[in-house]
């Protein structure tokens, strides 16, 4: 009953004209971003975040979440039509989607991608709605040691699945923790790592780092090549977008598989939609009676991964909203957004801000319907976005990045920091350091230090408090085990396989 009442209130919020408008803007932008290879949701959300400071928080989070899940709908379009994934989550869709297009079945492939995304995306939101409130209630019993252990576990999982080298991923996370320490220590008022700069006393703004590491670095990587990779031929006259009844029948299990795998992997920090889509494709292939045909244009080979990468969104929002622990770079930016608007994601988020939580949930139901409508008949139109010359796109991204950073503080010093973090992000990519652990370390750094210091204050300096409480002991043990996985041959082989596929 409580959930139903919450959902009804949520629909009242989400159906307000302004919020409907922002939901539409979000899913539309998300679709465009998803279609454009080389511009991902984290970069887009980071760039637009500063522009939401003056917005109503409900409208702002509805829009940013719309970009997040909308991009996953758009990502399949280029995978199917051109064998070029718009997002890493749509890589596996290329396998059968592109083959279907080559056989003249691009329409049903695009149609089933949109339908599977809708079905699984809706199931993911349903899961979020049902699972988040009890988890939040359970987490109410958490104190500082449990929070420290939980953040350590979240960071360890992200490190495990972020890159081939655990050492590099750990170093990236630790650099994130260091950046989070810059500024005045709130416990003792000591200024730390400020290099004598007054501007650094209040710390380094999350937005500056996120835009630098994601947006600027992405533009630099894309501009390495002179050729305009976006100008690829788009098939014209796509017809018969609706799959046949037989197609839908063939995809029955794929809908369920994608929905469940996507949600479960999403709820796991570090999992992400890429791994979700590969796992569900693998499962679909394993149980299919025509598994030998996978890779030649099998429709369930499109439905399963596309469903999984959309259901993942609902799962990923569970730890973010109920525990305040993001599991990826994108959700770390959403966490920063909520904090910047004055909210504290965690166990008290749902009881203290029911309108925001339920408004977001309801908007995701609405957003999924909007995306289905947008993506079925308008796919050919969206595909034209790819004709946009890159020499128009990249200055636009650079301009929005600079305006976004400047609008946060009105300080040219922050723009200099943006340059520094842009270069850092680029070098990280070239040298194979994953950026997600850095962003996560930055997002969790202050909270981790606070939780650790509060724990030690509670225990009068004894570190044993972290292992003498059962929940924190279990989570810290898991974190250590997770980081030891690369030392075990078979487990590490599994990890590397998952990363290679991603």
């Amino acid at each position, binding site marked *: 009953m409580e959930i139903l009442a919450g959902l009804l209130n949520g629909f009242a919020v989400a159906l307000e004209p302004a919020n409907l408008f922002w939901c539409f803007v979000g899913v539309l932008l998300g679709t465009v971003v998803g279609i454009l290879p080389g511009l991902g949701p984290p970069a887009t959300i980071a760039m637009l975040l500063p522009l939401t400071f003056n917005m109503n928080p409900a409208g702002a989070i509805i829009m940013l979440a719309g970009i997040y899940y909308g991009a996953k709908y758009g990502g399949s379009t280029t995978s199917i039509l051109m064998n070029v994934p718009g997002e890493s989550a749509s890589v596996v869709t290329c396998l059968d989607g592109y083959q279907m297009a080559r056989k003249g079945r691009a329409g049903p492939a695009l149609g089933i991608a949109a339908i599977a995304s809708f079905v699984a995306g809706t199931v993911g939101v349903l899961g979020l709605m049902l699972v988040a409130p009890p988890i939040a209630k359970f987490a109410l019993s958490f104190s500082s040691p449990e929070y420290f252990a939980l953040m350590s576990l979240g960071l360890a999982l992200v490190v495990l699945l972020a890159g081939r080298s655990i050492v590099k991923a750990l170093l990236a996370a630790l650099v994130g*923790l260091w950046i989070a320490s810059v500024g005045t220590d709130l416990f003792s008022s000591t200024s730390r790592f400020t290099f004598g700069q007054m501007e650094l006393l209040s710390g380094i703004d999350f937005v500056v780092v996120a835009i630098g590491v994601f947006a600027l670095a992405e533009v630099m990587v894309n501009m390495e090549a002179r050729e305009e990779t976006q100008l690829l031929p788009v098939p014209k006259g796509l017809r018969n977008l609706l799959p046949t009844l037989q197609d839908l029948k063939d995809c029955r299990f794929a809908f369920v598989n994608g929905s469940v795998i996507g949600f479960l992997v999403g709820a796991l920090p570090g999992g992400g939609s890429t791994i979700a889509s590969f796992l569900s494709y693998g499962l679909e292939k394993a149980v299919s009676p025509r598994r030998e045909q996978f890779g030649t244009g099998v429709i369930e080979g499109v439905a399963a991964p596309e469903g999984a990468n959309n259901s993942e969104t609902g799962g990923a929002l569970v730890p973010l909203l109920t525990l305040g622990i993001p599991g990826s770079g994108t959700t770390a930016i959403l966490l920063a957004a909520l904090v910047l608007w004055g909210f504290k994601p965690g166990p008290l988020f749902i009881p203290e801000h029911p309108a925001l939580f339920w408004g977001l949930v309801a908007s995701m139901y609405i957003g999924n319907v909007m995306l289905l409508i947008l993506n079925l008949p308008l796919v050919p139109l969206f595909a034209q976005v790819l004709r946009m010359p890159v020499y128009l796109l990249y200055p636009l991204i650079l301009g929005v990045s600079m305006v976004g950073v400047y609008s946060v503080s009105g300080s040219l010093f922050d723009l200099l920091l943006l340059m520094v973090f842009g270069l850092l992000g680029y070098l990280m990519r070239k040298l194979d350091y994953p950026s997600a652990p850095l962003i996560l370390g930055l997002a969790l750094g202050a909270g981790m230090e606070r939780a650790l210091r509060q724990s030690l204050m509670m225990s009068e300096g004894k570190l044993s408090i972290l292992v003498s409480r059962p929940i924190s002991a279990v989570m810290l043990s898991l974190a250590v085990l997770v980081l030891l996985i690369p030392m075990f041959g078979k487990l590490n082989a599994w990890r590397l396989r998952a990363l290679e596929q991603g």
Partner: protein
Amino acid sequence: MEDGTRKSGDLWSGLALAALGFYIIIQASQWEYLGPDGPGAGFFPLWYGVVILGLSVLLIVSHLRRAHDRGNPTDWSRLGRALSTWFSLAVAVALFKPLGFVISFALLTYFIVAVMYRRPLATAALVAVASAAGFYLVFDLALSVPLPVGMLGF
């Protein structure tokens, strides 16, 4: 192409991170570690500084152990294009104070279109003026988002 950058990069990035770890340890050791009220400002940084130093040494050692594996050479032309983009952006940011956002951004766009993508100069000029004007209209006038103002007042 990527391999060469990455393999020598492991050494240089390892050295840079080791220096960072060392700097963090030196700084953190100057702040209170444990006081009567609990851990001080130096407690957390000291620990992650030690781990950064340890891991970066591990990275350097593992690079030296496979130093004979040279990988492919770095593609300097691609690297040069990326760094040119970064440098042009840095120049644009430096020009914000005297020229303001609108003119600096127009110059940046002109550079990218005309030099980086070798489009005709007229096309570059048109794109530069239209983008800068678009940013001014959308952000400054329509959304009231402040843009850096130069000596000319915009």
